[in-house]
């Protein structure tokens, strides 16, 4: 028996969420031989959890919208740390990518004149999110899946990549194991697209599924790619807090988009207390105006609940810390109050927010049409990630591409809701297109087979210590370490504790082991997950420690203000020659002049 099975592709795509599937469809359309590897079954990726919608300036609901406004909103939301070219391409191409989904069978909600409907969301000046109730992500992934299965690419389900293999400086393949029987697989590939999504599992309270272990981030880093801005981690303001078993599960921003308000334990609406200057001129200063905005009054300004996620999360955190929160350590999110304005409010809420209604009814025993929800911040999204070229999505390693959440640049210091789903399809397409082109232009590769053998030995290591420490307990300790020391509000000493703690967890990882055999063994899998989890945790902690200012999602107690100098720098991490983590700062390139004019014009509005 050989030690591993082999497959060969022009383009190998790792991950089958929105970005991975969109990349696979695009690469296949060029005639390339394409393989897709996913950790779960096809169609189960975390994209299904996206609720609110995909942002695209189609101007179906408000004809004042256009790509320039979307671009300016994205840059402002990202506190100008974004890669401006990615923000431009995203704003320009998102409408075509959304319309394309309809041509592939997506069935989105409609406007009265029959076009794709769009809803309000935090930080977006106009109603911009194409959606299907509150299950837009499911619609996206199912559409791409159902269209994709007829495009000729091969899907390897429940296969986990543990290492990338190179040919000199160029990417050449991926080493993986399949879960059913624990057999090893080597994928030889001329180009690889990483589309592995997020990394929230290094925290205790997160909206991410078990898959969000930062695999792509870690694979790219260990293959020599540069990472950027890992300190920017989005805490979604509204996760469930009660009961404990559901803590962290997402409550869509769509609740606030439909008129939901945030209240403290005394029922006071606290979001009017603190409105950032940059948004003051477009935020309502009274409840009546806020409600008119929700009902589509174009003259009204938006309610403060729809400020950006970083800000709302911090406001909620402040209420909780000052003992003004709800009994279980959250605040109240109330959609039932709209009965003051809407006669059939029960029907309206069930229609607009069906999954939220069921989620609370079934998991918490709360009827959201009658009672407020208890919510609090939950780790949701990594703005930072693998550094990519804005046009091609190629990383700093030749032939290695990245798209979606694991890639970085579009969102800067804070991502606007709805910009993630559109990110997946805009840059998933680009990654697929350019990876296929790269494969054609650069021809065959000769993978370093000694590295494949090393990857095999590493993957088998947990079985060498059948009585070693249980991987689940190491994972739990890491989650607590990150939750307690690299949270919403950060300070130097805590982050240093985190870095030290990660070092000792790395030691424990070496001796961790698993019993049982190789057939579908979660103990083994969890042991293999520790390497990426510890790698990304260290990146987050080190990057956060290095940014001595507060900006977007990164808030320092010891440096509470923005710093102009720091605000021009991005944080770059890469693997040093000695195997350690090297951190440097890089100056942001100047924004193209016509785009500066667009930003300035929109700041006046």
């Amino acid at each position, binding site marked *: 028996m050989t030690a591993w099975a082999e497959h060969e592709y022009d383009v190998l795509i790792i991950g089958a969420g929105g970005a991975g599937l969109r990349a696979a469809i695009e690469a296949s359309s060029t005639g390339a031989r394409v393989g897709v590897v996913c950790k779960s*079954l096809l169609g*189960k*990726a975390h994209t299904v959890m996206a609720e609110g919608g995909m942002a695209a300036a189609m101007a179906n609901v408000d004809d004042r919208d256009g790509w320039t406004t979307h671009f300016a909103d994205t840059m402002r939301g990202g506190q100008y740390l974004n890669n401006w070219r990615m923000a431009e391409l995203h704003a320009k191409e998102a409408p075509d990518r959304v319309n394309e989904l309809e041509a592939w069978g997506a069935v989105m909600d409609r406007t009265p004149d*029959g076009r794709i409907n769009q809803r309000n969301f935090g930080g977006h000046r106009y109603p911009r999110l194409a959606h299907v109730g509150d299950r837009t992500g499911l619609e996206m992934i199912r559409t791409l899946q*159902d269209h994709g299965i007829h495009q000729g690419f091969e899907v390897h389900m429940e296969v986990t990549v543990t290492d990338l293999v190179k040919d000199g400086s160029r990417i050449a393949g991926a080493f993986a194991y399949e879960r*059913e029987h624990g057999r090893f697989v080597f994928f030889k590939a001329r180009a690889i697209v990483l589309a592995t999504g997020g990394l929230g599992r290094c925290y205790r309270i997160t909206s991410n*599924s078990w898959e969000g272990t930062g695999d792509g981030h870690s694979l790219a880093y260990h293959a020599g790619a540069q990472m950027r801005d890992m300190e920017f981690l989005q805490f979604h303001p509204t996760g469930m807090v009660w009961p404990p078993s*559901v803590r962290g599960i997402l409550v869509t921003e769509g609740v606030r988009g439909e008129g939901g308000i945030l209240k403290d334990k005394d029922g006071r609406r606290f979001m009017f207390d603190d409105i950032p200057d940059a948004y003051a001129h477009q935020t309502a200063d009274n409840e009546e105006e806020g409600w008119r905005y929700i009902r589509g009054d174009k003259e009204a300004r938006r309610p403060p609940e729809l400020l950006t996620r970083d800000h709302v999360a911090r406001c909620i955190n402040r209420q909780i810390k000052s003992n003004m929160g709800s009994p279980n350590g959250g605040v109240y999110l109330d959609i039932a109050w709209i009965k003051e304005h809407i006669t059939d409010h029960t029907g309206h809420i069930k229609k607009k927010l069906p999954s939220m209604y069921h989620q609370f009814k*079934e998991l918490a025993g709360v009827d959201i049409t009658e009672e407020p929800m208890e919510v609090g911040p939950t780790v949701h999204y990594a703005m930072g990630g693998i550094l990519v070229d804005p046009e091609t999505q190629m990383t700093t390693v030749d032939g290695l591409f990245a798209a979606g959440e694991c890639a970085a640049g579009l969102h800067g210091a804070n991502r606007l809701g709805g910009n993630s789903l559109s990110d997946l399809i805009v840059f998933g397409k680009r990654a697929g297109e350019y990876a296929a082109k790269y494969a054609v232009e650069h021809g065959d590769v000769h993978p370093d087979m000694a590295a494949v053998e090393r990857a095999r030995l590493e993957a088998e290591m947990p079985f060498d210590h059948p009585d070693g420490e249980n991987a689940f307990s190491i994972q739990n300790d890491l989650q607590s370490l990150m939750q307690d020391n690299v949270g919403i509000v950060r300070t130097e000493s805590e982050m240093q504790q985190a870095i030290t703690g990660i070092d000792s967890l790395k030691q424990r990882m070496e001796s961790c082991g698993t019993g049982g055999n190789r*057939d579908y063994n979660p103990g083994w899998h969890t042991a293999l997950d520790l390497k990426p989890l510890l790698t990304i945790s260290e990146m987050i902690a080190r990057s956060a420690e290095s940014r001595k200012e507060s900006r977007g999602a990164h808030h320092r107690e010891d440096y509470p203000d923005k710093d102009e100098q720091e605000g021009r720098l991005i944080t770059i991490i890469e693997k040093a020659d000695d195997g350690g983590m090297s951190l440097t700062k890089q100056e942001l390139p100047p924004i193209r002049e016509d785009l500066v004019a667009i930003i300035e014009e929109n700041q006046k509005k």
Partner: protein
Amino acid sequence: MSTVTLRIWRGTEDEGSFEEYSIERNPGMVVLDAVHKVQAEQAPDLACRWNCKAGKCGSCSAEINGMPKLMCMTRLDDLPEDKPIMVQPLKTFRTIKDLVTDVSWNYAVKKKIKPFKPRKPDAPDGTWRMKQVDVERVQEFRKCIECFLCQDVCHVLRDHEKYDEFIGPRFLIYTAGLEMNPLDTEDRISDLKKRDGIGYCNITKCCTVVCPEHIKITDNGIIPMKERVVDEFYDPLTRLFRIFKPSKKSKAEESS
């Protein structure tokens, strides 16, 4: 804090047994939490699938006290406290290990169904116009999270094992969703009758009962499709008309 006892299937399709595990019970706990606790503390190699833990991905399907359910949406509070909770894999599909089954048959079935084929765009910019009321019935079917609980409970598959002749409730509503899509021009009615075995469904509605998305699979999906099959193949008047009237498919070909 009280404890709860689970009896979980450990083994493969061919051999195995129910093993008993007792764990501490937390407020609001769901069956998936309990299985995870067993995994982390007592049996690290206990296999189960899960992803979102919020009833949206359809990965953690199992039979709980004999009922097909999502483990993440089944609260311990809703199960009888005086006896152990039985957790076993879906019966209709081969057990790979413990609670994990081989559902690949479903993926193969879907691939055979003719894909979506839209009419020409309605507007010069390449977009379409549809009324909300016309898309709503399709949206009901598109809520499906592919947990395959309906496939598991359907006696045509579960007891009669008609895997080669019947596509099951999931793919009947998948087909219904395509057929009822206002933009679609493909014709799948003949396949439904001849290849997909829609006639095997005798409307016991077990699928509707277990659907975690509360889709009215039988009433809103399968019965209308059965009616279309009847109209197409058995109604003498329609058959007569068809001689004079072009079919949906040939109309689509004309327009494209």
